[in-house]
């Protein structure tokens, strides 16, 4: 579906010529956009990125939502040198597991700081925002729990760089294959120790249940056993603690079960080696249940908690037609009516928290000060990257996260109250907000943060709270900003 069709459907034809100069006001005054209606620019920013920031709204409005989607689907075309420069402060993410284990075996904290800290930085500062959201998506899909015994954390550094980040938008089979060979996954789900005659079933089960077919995708307990046999011998170089070794993938033929296997009614002939596992991956990647499962999860992430059959079927069809092309599947989703008319989705804590730092325009220099509070805040909300303790990844349903609002409110207070650097935000305000009274500020900020104007009722609540917070406009504006960030409209995307 084309954007102009969306505009017809929504009856917001005036938006096409919208001048971005006064985002909040313009939405109501120039376009006939009523409070609560959707601004396509804000919507695309909400769904494809970790949140609006002072430069991004202008940019997307200027090039158009379709051009922005195109750009984001081709991350290699985007100059990300500013973010790359910041990332030089996390040198350990460029090192291999083998190097890291020899250096940090007794204290892996610097490795965790580099891995998690760089994830924060990329979410906040990378211009390849959709790529980062997909990294998060696949990191959940192929979830690995950093706190499993050493050397999990060292192996995850390799996995993040060489598997997840390398295959976000390409062929699903390639991603699945890279993950199956990933020492991090082989260690996490114990396959590296699986051998005849008592194979370990952990990876085999999750491969079908979580990575491909889905729990009701048509496999049996016998299939679990057969797949486990097919992957016997898929291992990593070195002892359990990896000391003195690279931890690279290796196939141990002497631990492989060479008898015939039957997987989902396909016969894997006797006498083979590593190709058993490869064939299983082929079978699974091309299975219709996999197309449906991946399509459902992508639609849940980018459209709504409970996506319609229509959008899931369309995405699954593209997935099947393109032999699992992730980029093409996403294109189908982004072109769908369901995407443009998607109901608000409750942000998960990571999206919410990174979104605050982005919205307030904080420069990278604050990460040193804010890194630890960010980590602690996410810990309090249960959403630190790579620390979900099970292989199914962080939940992607709003209802799961809604029972714990308090830490979000405290994050909003901390983000505004800690004497942060508001230079970028102030410049943004100066540029666009001619009005220097409180109402003008609140109206502008809410338009910017929520992508819609406040209702009269909301405005009154925010104004009263701000006025009670101090006598100067600065005090009032800061308090009002904290309230807007903690408000329900900013919890939703």
């Amino acid at each position, binding site marked *: 579906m084309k954007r102009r069709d969306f505009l017809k459907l929504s009856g917001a034809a005036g938006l096409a010529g919208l001048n971005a100069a006064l985002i909040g006001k313009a939405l109501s005054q120039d376009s006939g956009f009523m409070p609560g209606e959707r601004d396509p620019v804000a919507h695309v920013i909400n769904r494809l990125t970790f949140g609006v920031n002072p430069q991004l709204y202008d940019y997307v409005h200027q090039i158009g939502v379709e051009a922005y989607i195109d750009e984001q689907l081709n991350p290699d075309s985007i100059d990300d040198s500013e973010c790359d420069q910041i990332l030089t*402060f996390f040198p350990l993410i460029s090192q291999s597991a083998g190097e890291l284990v020899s250096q940090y075996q007794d204290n892996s904290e610097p490795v965790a700081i580099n891995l998690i800290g760089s994830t924060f930085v990329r979410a906040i500062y990378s211009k390849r925002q959709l790529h980062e959201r997909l990294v998060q998506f696949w990191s959940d899909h192929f979830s690995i729990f950093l706190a499993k015994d050493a050397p999990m954390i060292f192996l995850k550094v390799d996995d993040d760089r060489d598997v997840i980040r390398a295959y976000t938008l390409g062929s699903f089979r390639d991603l699945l294959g890279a993950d199956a060979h990933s020492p991090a996954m082989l260690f996490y789900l114990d396959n590296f*120790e699986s051998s005849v005659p*008592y194979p370990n079933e952990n990876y085999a089960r999750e491969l079908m249940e979580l990575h491909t077919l889905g729990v009701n995708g048509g496999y049996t307990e016998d299939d679990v056993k057969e797949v486990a046999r097919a992957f016997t011998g898929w291992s990593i170089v070195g002892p359990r603690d990896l000391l003195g070794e690279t931890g690279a993938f290796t196939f141990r033929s002497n631990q492989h079960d060479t008898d015939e296997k039957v997987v989902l009614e396909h016969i894997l002939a006797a006498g083979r080696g590593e190709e058993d596992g490869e064939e299983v991956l082929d079978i699974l990647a091309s299975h219709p249940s996999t197309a449906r499962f991946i399509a459902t999860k992508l639609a849940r992430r980018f459209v709504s908690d409970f996506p319609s059959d229509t959008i899931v079927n369309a995405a699954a069809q593209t997935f099947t037609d393109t032999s699992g092309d992730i980029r093409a599947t996403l294109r189908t989703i982004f072109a769908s009516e369901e995407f443009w008319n998607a109901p608000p989705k409750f942000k998960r804590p990571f999206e919410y928290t990174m979104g605050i730092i982005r919205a307030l325009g904080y420069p990278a220099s604050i990460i040193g000060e804010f890194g*630890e509070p960010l980590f602690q805040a996410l*810990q309090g909300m249960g*959403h630190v990257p790579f620390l979900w303790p099970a292989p199914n990844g962080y939940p992607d349903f709003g209802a799961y996260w809604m029972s*714990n*609002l308090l830490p979000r409110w405290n994050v909003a207070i901390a983000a505004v109250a800690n004497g942060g650097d508001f230079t970028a935000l102030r410049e943004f305000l100066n540029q666009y907000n001619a009005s220097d009274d409180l109402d003008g500020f609140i109206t502008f900020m809410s338009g910017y943060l929520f992508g819609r104007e406040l209702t009269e009722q909301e405005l009154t609540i925010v104004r009263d709270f701000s006025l009670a917070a101090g006598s100067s406009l600065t005090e009032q504006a800061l308090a009002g900003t904290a*309230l807007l960030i903690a408000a*329900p409209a900013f919890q939703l995307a």
Partner: protein
Amino acid sequence: MSHNVNRRAFLKASATLAGLAAAQHTLPAWMPRLAFAQPYNNPRGDVLVVIFLRGGADSMNMIVPYAEDAYYTARPTLAIPRPDANTGAKALDLDGFFGLHPALAPLLPIFQGGGMTAVHAAGSPHATRSHFEAMSFMERGTPGSYDVTTGWVGRHLASLDTGSTSPVRGIGWGTAVQQALSGGPSIVAMQSIINYHLNGDTQSAANMLASLGSLYSLESESLSAAALSTQAAIEVVASVGYANYTPQNGATYPEYEFAMALRQTAALARADVGLEVACIDLGGWDTHAQQGSVEGDQALLMLQLAGGLAAFHQDMGADMNRVTVVVMSEFGRRLAENASLGTDHGHGGALLLMSDNLSAAPVVANWVGLTPDVLDRGEDLPITTDYRDVLTEVLTRRLNNDQVNSVFPDYAPQSLNLFNGQMSSQPPA
């Protein structure tokens, strides 16, 4: 773009709960009030504590069927030695057939005193070996069906008309409420009582809370309800004076997160805040590798479980009369060990009960043996007791809730007679 990124350690992980005692909040001094005063609960039953061992706990090495030769045949390296073995660590006899894993030793006197019962070869009867499906079925209380989306604890709270106005009838310790609590009235997720407040000076925090309440009340029912219970819970837990809480009877809780959740549960249960159910998770039981025998990954988890439960039991003392603890897991594990000193997903497991009102033996089981012909799929402990039978007894005998059909729809529970007598419908004096 500035390059001044300070890499100083910002991962000083967790352990915030350990510092509770040092918190500087000036709250009313803790007073051991009359146990279970009743402004909120009338007529309610015990405070229920539901502990979920996430990952599929290997119950066979916790409540060890040491009299079964097949157990030792199937587990040449992982089996727990018989109580009469000539080794150091070995099973602690419970009844001449089953024994406790040595890491559960702190619970032995409680079992011996009649304060704990294990229901073995029990679980959720659906055949799934998936953690996530099994947990979901078990917590929703509807094995095999996705029709009901709420949790069994949530439906218990919803169906028990206590007239309670407490905002904390149910607490899910952690960063989100457990699925079992889902759909319940007045439930909230919480990690720490001490930290459960809005930051800032008292006046601005109160102002902000009020304004947030107004904003959220304009939203969808789920969001406005979540905000409302958060606000109310903030006020209620502040009244508990947890900073000054001293466990009774000389109890000392280990500083694990799990034990801290029990410590906080004890404090809330004693204060009159209307707590009826607390859900606590203890994760890490998916021991496909390095499970170990008398020592190993699972033994370390059992130390946490037993240490926390024993401290809670000691702390509650005579008040255990009004508390029921249930420990469960999504499934048990395979009888036979695998190639990596671990066990794969199995079927039947064990539930543990802790209460001063148990009438049953230390181990209750419809035990049919461990021969291949009786094992589920020829390899896993069969389920001969549906976990809903156990929970139904808790509901009717201890929680004063006879609306069993609301909690476990379309299920006809079998009586197990695990508890003494019938629940009085009168509030405790």
